[in-house]
């Protein structure tokens, strides 16, 4: 029977991520349009039936693919496992979180199942009796809706786009393990690495995003640059308010080019056209001068404020809720108190 399959990575003793629950929420929205039942496909290690049981109320059936080698992400293994789950479930729609893991592997699974794939889906709506999937094009600058005739239709669901599904209420899904040996692999995961010196300044789950622009490292009103002081103030802010750090391209390029820069800034911090489009409830931009390319990176920040010495700052006018025309060093010293 055609159904909606939600593929999630899971581990026996770990709760599901918020992104996984949002993807189940997306499945509920799609189900309301196509009137099909929701199943879940769990990929990971350990006894996944326990995880399936915890999904009571959100899925009617669960298909599991468990193998110790699936504890770590890896394209070849994940695409294989996901394709097997899809074939076992007979799903016509396959959803997965737009996490780094499934953004990599789901397209491969789609190809192996003879399906089609679209990514970063942010909405579903009924159009001519069918489900249309909404997403952004040209790096969050144009919105469009996709219609597809051919399935199975694989989609990754963008974070923060759907409410989390309620789980743990009602009947537990019937569990069907898929027992297949993973193919031989030519790759071995060595582990996680941090290129920014061990300081975790990117925090996807933080409520607040601080974007630091190149202005922090420019000559200040006393005629001197204060990059070291800027670093201290920014790090103190991140720690005190639990904020995540982003940067403008200009600030990132300074660091990459060896100019006087914020030493903890890497290209992973960059938001905008060639950077990330993070999703946080609030954003505070400081010393940023870009306009449209920069705003693109802020498309999904709900509440936006900015601090800048320029009252006509093109980035802030019409795009931020509040623009404080102030010296960011003085304000951040006060914020540190």
């Amino acid at each position, binding site marked *: 029977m055609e159904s909606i399959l939600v593929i999630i990575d899971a581990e026996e003793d770990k709760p599901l991520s918020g992104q996984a629950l949002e993807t189940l929420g997306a499945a509920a929205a799609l189900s309301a349009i196509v009137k099909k039942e929701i199943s879940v496909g769990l990929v990971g290690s350990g006894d996944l039936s326990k995880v399936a049981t915890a999904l009571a109320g959100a899925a009617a059936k669960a298909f599991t693919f468990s193998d110790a080698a699936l504890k770590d992400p890896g394209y070849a293994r994940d695409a294989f496992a996901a394709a097997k789950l899809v074939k076992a479930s007979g799903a016509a729609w396959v959803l997965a979180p737009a996490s780094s893991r499934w953004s990599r592997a789901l397209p491969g699974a789609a190809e192996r199942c003879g399906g089609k794939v679209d990514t970063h889906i942010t909405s579903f709506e009924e159009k001519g009796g069918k489900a249309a999937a909404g997403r952004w094009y040209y790096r969050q600058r144009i919105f469009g809706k996709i219609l597809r005739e051919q399935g199975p239709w694989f989609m990754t669901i963008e974070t923060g786009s759907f409410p989390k599904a309620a789980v743990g209420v009602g009947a537990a899904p019937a569990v069907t393990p898929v027992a297949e040996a993973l193919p031989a692999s030519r*790759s071995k995961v060595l582990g996680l690495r941090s290129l920014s010196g061990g300081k975790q300044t990117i925090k996807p789950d933080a409520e607040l995003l601080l974007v630091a622009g190149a202005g922090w490292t420019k000559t200040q009103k006393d005629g001197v640059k204060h990059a070291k002081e800027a670093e201290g103030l920014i790090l103190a802010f991140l720690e005190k308010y639990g904020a995540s750090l982003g940067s403008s391209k200009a600030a990132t390029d300074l660091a990459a080019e060896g100019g006087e820069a914020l030493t903890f800034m*890497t290209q992973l911090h960059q938001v905008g056209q*060639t950077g990330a489009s993070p999703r946080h409830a609030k954003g505070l931009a400081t010393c940023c001068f870009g306009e449209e390319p920069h705003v693109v990176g802020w498309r999904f920040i709900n509440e936006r404020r900015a601090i800048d010495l320029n009252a006509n700052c093109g980035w802030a006018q019409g795009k931020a809720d509040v623009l*404080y025309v102030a*010296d960011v060093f003085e304000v951040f010293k006060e*914020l540190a108190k």
Partner: protein
Amino acid sequence: MSIDHTYHLVICGSVVPDPLQSLEPVVTQGKPGLKNELMLPMVLDPFVNHSLNEAAKLREATKDTQVHLVAVGPKAKLQQLMMVLAQKTAFNLVAVDAPAGGFIDSHTVAAALAEAIKAIPGLDLQKTLVFGGWSSASRASGTTLQLVGEKLGITEQFFGVDRLTPAADGGFTVLERVEAGQHLETQVAGAPAVIGWATGELPELPNNPKIGMMNMAKIMPAIGKAKAVDLASAGFSVVDTALPAEKRQTRVVKDMPAAAVAAEIKEWIASGKAG
């Protein structure tokens, strides 16, 4: 470091509007596109550009490694682009004459790329590393390279790659971007593999007119021979394309003491938090 190993490097890429251009969606003959699309200045997709830098570095570090650039786009745009790219590093161009907009199905693009790669004379797929950007600046789907890899039978694939370190035996390690600003390090036995580059770690390649002249001698005939490909996809359509209408009423706060600004920001940060 020089390594006595040969890779066959194939870079997949396309052209996108210069990121600083304003874009406006239009529908022409029932198909979505951009206003004045053919007039917009185009650049090589930014992440593909990074992969070109990385390919040049890998070629320098290895023996007899050749670089092929398989570029999809309208002939005229590819020709303009090559005037700049040709000066960066030596490569063989395989041009595919096709539209390059964001509203095209990545499945048809991947099929065209895979066919073009299979037709490269002398390419040994077992030695091949397929490079490209992990996501385009147009469709931004991050799916095309996976589909190309699958069509070529390459199942070792890595995306959001910022570093590839080759080893003497032809193997290599890659750093892929994952959540929270971290990288996943993976050791790979060797080619074949698909590498979807993020920004990498290399600066822009400088222009070298000598390389440019050598490249252009081969590039112009390659563009002339470019096969026209129809990228229409049955049963696929993008509809209701629109710009976001949102414009905020910005409250501009001037002449407020720093302490008062900080107090207001603290109150705003705390608002809406549980507890």
